[in-house]
């Protein structure tokens, strides 16, 4: 056993006869850390590039490097490559020590590491090529989705196998969070990524969900990717490394219990807060809002346990960069988890949704919480694993201050920009007309903030580079110094029967109270208060009874549960599933009634839609007009569920860097769209949209259109066999009609290009049409009638 590793712990009770030697696998965590640092720098560099593109459109230098394609690369790289590798490093390192066992299989660890890097590399290749499913934070196409699922299963097997071989009976709170992470991320990823591939050797696929269903599934996933990929594993890491680095005991075990269960149960319900004031049914919106508010205290429970653990150790925080990063990271977590519930209030969301405020919010979490917790963990771990002190503490301090200043610049810029633009969108004159009728006015007003954000982000990136240098000099890429400990194998002791645990008072009480309260929420106005009061009374007396019983002795219930890994996993899985099932199942079985009127896209429009998705247009353009007067004056009537029912995936969007497109069809002539796509600034001075002139040269593969319609027909879009067979002919006819009209105005573009298809799609938005109608009747055709000419 090496004397250098302060994390090593010898059980002093171990008598030589019983003791077994364990050598921890520290090569795997070190590898994951190196990957995290590398991908973190890459992902944030892409972030700086997209920030520049927003401030200064000429930075969109090439079609593959335009904002719409790089933004998904930025989000995927930071979430899944930077934070992903960081949490794997922390989990592999801390779990071995908390379980007193070497990771079960070195082979699985290697498959996990290299498999994950392969997934990342394939993302780096496919996203700039426009190969995307068009679902935010889940853009990767189906073969990569399958690879992710397989790698995750390898990770899960390795982790639970290690738990099964543990030499420590009770699972520490960090392990609880890791368990919840592994179980939930698997469920989220698989359910959300279900898609039907287009036959014929393409990577293209369509989500099995459409319209509001897809919206609900997507944000159930998207929000809980934040919860279970960016939050719970990092909380586990906090619970291990923060008390280690501070040398202080964790403040409160019972707070750990309560905030863990409350957090994982409540978080999963909160997804619909991304869809407030949309066409999503009102009950789902309200659930999303109230569960987000109830999430405030459980989130702060984690922050409190972190900060209060530092009580009495603040002088150390001033000196040690590791603790500085942890203290600031936990504080940023507290800020972000206060801002989150605030933004989930319907009226606040009415102002903030689609604006930069949301961008600022996620970055206070990503840069402040994830980035700083990662930095703290790296600065703590790399010296210990490499067996030498940190190369430069002053450089780490510099990183801390540059990073903090960068985050503050970033957040302030986004607050100012988000609130300003939100206020400008809703500013109306007394007669109800818009004070800023042209969208671009509101963009020009916030342009200075985009430069400030670029500065903040660049400073943060500089800090990351300093960290990378510092860690490499410390030994990030060097061979690790192995830690060997002696452990006492677990003695077989009689267990409490699992039925007694499952049907113990706290669990039965929780299920009964939640069940009665749930019935109360679903019942009518007179019965509802009765049920809620009954739930409250049962809960109150139940808690008192349990506390009375506990005082009379016996091991506390949760301590028993902590010793039962399988039961713990099953129960946490059930706690997580409750919210998902309650929200998503009703949406999947109930089809919106109005959907009978809706008509699917014509062949060319469908091709145009695929271009729209591939170019990442949804990253800046929403297709969801909210029921607010200032919004309907600008964009037209509120969007309905029926209008997006055949959209696989839905394209409601989450951000308006440009205007909403839900009713774009027929608003401007084809020529306007053509000129605007070729050079946005020729039409709209001050626009920051990337140019799409290259779409005029990109030919469509119309042989494939029928296959695409066939795939969509499998997931419920009512294309007939005739539609599918005639797809190519219909697409050519519609394309020809648009191209010949453009030619009359002096714009020459071939009819089977992506340019013509995307114009057909844009002109279709907000319109209803019969599939397969002749071009002359098509909505995108605007033959001036004789009567109009005569006017």
């Amino acid at each position, binding site marked *: 056993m090496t004397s250098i590793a302060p994390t090593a712990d010898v059980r002093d009770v171990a008598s030589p006869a019983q003791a077994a030697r364990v050598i921890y696998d520290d090569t795997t965590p070190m590898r994951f850390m190196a990957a995290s640092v590398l991908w973190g720098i890459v992902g944030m560099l892409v972030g700086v590039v997209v920030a520049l593109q927003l401030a200064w459109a000429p930075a969109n230098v090439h079609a593959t490097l335009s904002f719409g394609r790089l933004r998904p690369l930025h989000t995927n790289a930071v979430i899944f490559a930077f934070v992903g590798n960081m949490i794997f490093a922390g989990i592999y390192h801390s779990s071995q020590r908390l379980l007193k066992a070497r990771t079960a299989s070195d082979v699985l660890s290697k498959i996990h590491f290299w498999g994950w890097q392969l997934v990342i590399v394939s993302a780096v290749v496919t996203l700039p090529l426009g190969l995307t499913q068009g679902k935010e934070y889940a853009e990767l196409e189906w073969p990569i989705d399958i690879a992710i699922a397989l790698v995750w299963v390898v990770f899960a097997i390795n982790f639970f196998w290690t738990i099964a071989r543990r030499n420590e009976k009770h699972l520490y709170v960090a392990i609880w969070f890791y368990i919840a992470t592994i179980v939930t991320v698997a469920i989220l990823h698989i359910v959300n990524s279900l898609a039907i591939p287009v036959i014929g050797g393409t990577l293209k696929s369509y989500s099995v969900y459409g319209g509001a269903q897809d919206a609900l599934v997507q944000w159930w996933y998207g929000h809980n990717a934040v919860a279970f990929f960016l939050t719970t594993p990092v909380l586990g890491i906090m619970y291990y490394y923060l008390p280690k680095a501070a040398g202080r005991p964790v403040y409160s*075990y*019972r707070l750990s219990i309560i905030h863990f269960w409350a957090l994982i149960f409540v978080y999963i319900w909160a997804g619909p807060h991304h869809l407030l004031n949309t066409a999503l049914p009102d009950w789902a919106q309200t659930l999303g809002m109230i569960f987000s508010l109830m999430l405030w205290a459980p989130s702060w429970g984690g922050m409190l346990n972190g900060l209060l653990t530092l009580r009495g150790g603040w002088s150390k925080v001033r000196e040690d960069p590791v603790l500085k990063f942890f203290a600031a990271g936990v504080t940023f977590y507290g800020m972000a988890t206060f801002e989150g519930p605030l933004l989930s209030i319907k009226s606040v969301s009415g102002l903030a949704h689609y604006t930069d405020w949301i961008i600022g919010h996620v970055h206070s979490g990503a840069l402040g919480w994830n980035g700083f917790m990662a930095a703290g963990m790296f600065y703590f771990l790399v010296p210990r694993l490499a067996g030498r002190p940190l190369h430069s503490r002053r450089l780490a301090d510099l990183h801390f201050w540059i990073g903090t200043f960068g985050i503050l610049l970033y957040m302030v810029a986004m607050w100012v920009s988000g609130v300003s633009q939100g206020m400008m969108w809703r500013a109306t004159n007394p007669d109800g007309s818009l004070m800023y009728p042209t969208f671009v006015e509101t963009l020009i007003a916030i342009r200075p903030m985009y430069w400030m954000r670029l500065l903040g982000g660049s400073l943060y990136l500089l800090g990351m580079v300093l960290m990378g240098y510092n860690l490499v000099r410390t030994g990030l890429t060097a061979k690790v110094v192995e830690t060997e400990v002696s452990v006492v194998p677990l003695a077989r002791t009689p267990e409490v029967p699992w039925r007694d645990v499952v049907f113990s008072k706290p669990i039965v009480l929780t299920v009964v109270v939640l069940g009665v309260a749930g019935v109360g929420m679903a019942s009518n106005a007179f019965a509802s208060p009765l049920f809620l009061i009954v739930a409250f009374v049962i809960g109150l007396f139940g808690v008192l009874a349990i506390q009375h019983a506990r005082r009379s002795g016996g091991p506390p219930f949760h301590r028993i549960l902590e010793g039962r890994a399988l039961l713990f996993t099953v129960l946490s899985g059930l706690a997580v599933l409750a919210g998902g099932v309650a929200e998503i199942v009703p949406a999947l079985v109930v089809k919106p009634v109005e959907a009978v009127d809706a008509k699917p896209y014509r062949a060319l429009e469908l091709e145009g839609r695929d271009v729209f998705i591939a170019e990442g247009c949804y990253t800046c353009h929403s297709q969801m007009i909210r029921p607010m007067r200032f919004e*309907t004056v600008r964009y037209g009537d509120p969007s309905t569920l029926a209008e997006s029912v055949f959209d696989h995936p839905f394209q409601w969007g989450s951000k308006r860097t440009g205007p909403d497109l839900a009713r774009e069809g027929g608003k401007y002539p084809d020529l306007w769209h053509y000129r605007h796509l070729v050079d946005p600034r020729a039409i709209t001075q001050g626009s920051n949209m990337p140019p799409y002139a290259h779409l005029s040269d990109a030919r469509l593969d119309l042989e494939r259109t029928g296959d695409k319609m066939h795939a969509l027909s499998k997931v419920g879009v009512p294309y007939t066999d005739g539609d599918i067979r005639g797809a190519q002919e219909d697409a050519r006819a519609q394309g020809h009609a648009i191209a010949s009209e453009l030619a009359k105005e002096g714009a020459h573009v071939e009819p089977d290009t992506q340019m013509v298809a995307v114009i057909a799609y844009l002109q279709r938005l907000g319109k209803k049409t019969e599939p397969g109608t002749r071009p002359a009747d098509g909505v995108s055709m605007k033959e001036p009638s004789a009567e109009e000419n005569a006017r």
Partner: protein
Amino acid sequence: MKSPSTPESSESVDRVIHEVDGIQEYDNKLPNWWLYTLYGAIAFAACYWYWFETARLGASPVEAYQAEMDRAAADQAMALTVGDATPEALAALAKDPNATALGKQVFVSTCAACHRADGGGSVGPNLTDEFWLHGSAPERIYRTIASGVPDKGMPAWQPQLGALKTQAVTAYVLGLVGTNVSGGKAPQGEREPISAR
């Protein structure tokens, strides 16, 4: 879960109860303010759900929108803040420098994208020649701007701009007629000489 604070149950502060891998755990009581936040949020959630979803006492976003639109319609009927767009009123506005200045401002920010800043036309027709697709009379121009020609890609602007700005921009367009700027779009529609108005 709030525990009644009896001396024997409230574990003395900062007592280590577990230890694993050198990490010790206290079992301190939950701060009261944290508990009140939790309880308060749960109570609020129950009340909010009851008010808006169970009893439907509060307006949903769609209902609130309907009410706002109804109010707006009522207000519009009550108050005519600007005069009617009669041919005489529009002709008078065209001579009012305040009106044409406002009109020019609106034109540059809103109309120039399609009609060019000088009115010479690009996507939309040339407004400075004597050829008209939808009529050159002041009230015809006003109607084209206010209600739009949706089939040809001309949006209805009155809902966005309001009556005042719509009339002002009409006044400004009336002043463009016959300026025949250079490099303008080729004539479209019927010839309607200025003298004929």
